[in-house]
């Protein structure tokens, strides 16, 4: 009798373990699919980014930038076009680090790529293609309706400290595109919510058409209602033109700076 119970328990454990492994496998596969939908491994991606930051209370500021991205090497180059006061500033990302170019001081600063872009809720690292399958593991999933989208909701935990946020919740629609992200601190505090309601397909891959980001750490009570800093990012004119290697260098950044 005792042997039978032990055997049954072992079978149940094995079945649970297999089910868990299957779940983990399917979540990993979904993360890989999510990454692949928006990566351009065979060419460069260029686009114009318009970033409008609205402070709690209503003040707005607009930054327009040209973005060049090479997913095969994990590099990107950002050139500020507007506002006039910042025109000529540039950002070059190599690996996990970033070069900032100040055309007034004629100097480069080497820093972390996790910082805010032009003091908005958009992070420098947000210019990257996703790499969820490398940087995170999914610890749970569920199905949920998000407006008109049927989504898989994945809770992710970071596998390394290269990422900006240690915990992320993703809403992935049926077509494998991330529609919503919630970024959390290690203690579980909600830091930022990003909505990507619509995408544009260029070649075989997808680029967000617009993103709306709410920074939960920047809020103010206005008229009895809590308002958050809200950043809207519009991506226009995507181009897959191949660019020379020298585009992703400090010298190029300095040369084109105005």
């Amino acid at each position, binding site marked *: 009798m005792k042997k039978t119970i032990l055997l049954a328990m072992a079978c149940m454990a094995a079945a649970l373990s297999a089910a868990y492994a299957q779940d983990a496998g399917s979540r990993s596969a979904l993360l890989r699919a999510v990454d692949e939908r928006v990566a351009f491994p065979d060419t460069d991606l*260029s686009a*114009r980014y318009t970033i409008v930051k609205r402070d709690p209370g209503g003040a707005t500021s607009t930054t327009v930038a*040209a*973005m*060049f991205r090479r997913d095969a090497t994990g590099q990107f180059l950002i*050139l500020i*076009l507007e506002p*006039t*006061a910042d*025109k000529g500033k540039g950002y070059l990302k190599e*690996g*996990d*680090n970033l070069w900032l170019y100040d055309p007034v*001081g004629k100097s480069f*600063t*080497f*820093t*972390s790529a*996790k910082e*805010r872009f032009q003091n908005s809720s958009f992070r420098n690292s947000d210019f990257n293609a996703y790499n969820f399958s490398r940087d995170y593991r999914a610890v749970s999933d569920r199905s949920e309706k*998000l*407006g*008109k989208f049927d989504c898989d909701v994945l809770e992710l935990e970071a596998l390394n400290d290269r990422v900006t946020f240690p915990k992320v919740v993703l809403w992935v629609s049926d*077509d494998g595109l991330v*529609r*919503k992200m919630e970024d959390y601190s290690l203690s579980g505090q*909600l830091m930022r*919510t*990003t*909505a990507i*309601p*619509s*995408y*544009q*397909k260029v*070649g075989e891959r997808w680029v967000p*058409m617009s993103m*709306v980001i*709410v920074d939960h*750490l*920047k809020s*103010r*009570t206005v008229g009895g209602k*809590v308002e*958050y800093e809200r950043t809207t990012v519009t991506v226009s*004119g*995507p*181009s*897959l*033109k191949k*660019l020379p290697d*020298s585009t992703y*260098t*400090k*010298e*190029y950044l300095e*040369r*084109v*700076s*105005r």
Partner: protein
Amino acid sequence: MSFRIGRPLAIVLVLAALASAAAQEAATGTAEADEASAGVLDDLFDEPAADTVVADTGEDYRETYVTAEKVALGGSFYALGGVAGGYVLWPTEDDWTSGLDRSLGAYAKTTLTLDARPSSIARVRASFVSTFMPTSSAAWPRFSISELYGDYAIAETVFARLGQFTSVWGQGRLFAPGDLMSGSGSYFSLRASVPTLLDGVSFYAMTPVTMAGYQSLAYAAKADLVLAGTYLSGGVRYREAEGLRGLVSVKRVAFGTDLMADATVRWLEDAASWSGVAGFFREWDDLKLYGEYYWAVDAAGALDHKAALAVGFNNIADTPLDLGVKARHSLSDGSGIVVAAVTWSPWRYVTATVGAPFIYGGDDGYYVSHSYDDEDEDTRVQAQGLQDYRLGAFVTLALKIPF
């Protein structure tokens, strides 16, 4: 008495602008707030714009910078005025009003930049600067060419720059012993860079505006490399009258903090002198913090060392006020200076500043006997400045219009 109201305040302004607010909103950080804000964007998905297929524009956005505008004019107008008052000398015990002084000052500067790009491989750039200072004898005629150079790219492999331009080496923000190219803006230089070799290799040949023979020429080379997330850089510069100077730089980001170090050596007439700086930079959402330690050992073996800390807060106590504080201290003679300032931008392009400098130490202390910002361009055109105040206060209003 005029007072210097240029770079020190500008530095404070920058620090303040870089600064971040001490307090995060009370509404954040709580479970209730998280719950309330969790679905804050969900309404965007009720009737979103449809996903679309767009044509690859094939646009080369580099053209936006390179040739879209054949000739571009730009620049800025900057004007600043203010008042200051305080002790230029410490008062005596029997007369607390001795040493008191006050001053009024104004300053304006116009920069005009011309940038011509006739093709994707060539560029000519010039910057002209004129300053106006009603409290001194000269006014707008303080005209200078701050840079004038041509760029030429050879097969996207070698970038050459020829003319008068500034190059900056080293990483120190508060102390800059690693900038072996300091003063390069007054040289006529040729720089050839190979950007795809390592993380950039550059060679320089430079001559002063008045060349007195080959002995006055300077030569330099620098190579950058990022290895396993660590920035490494090495550079050398040689000029017969200045000797051979070398620089090694290291920087790495660890736990969200930038950590950097520069070390330099100079060989001249069979003697070596050394200097260096090590520091950190940390940025939070509304707070920025720099710290640096500087050291120098001269050819006789004497050590001079200093430390500096700069901190800035944006929107202090949820107001539009920014606060910046910069402190420098000489560990060699005990002198130092602390400048604190609050800035506010009431209108676009306009910044108001209220601040207070405090200088301490003996009369022969470094920060008492020196201008506390030796590289301030305004100290070259104004003999007296805020450094005259051992303890004071100032109020300024600045207008900066970039175009």
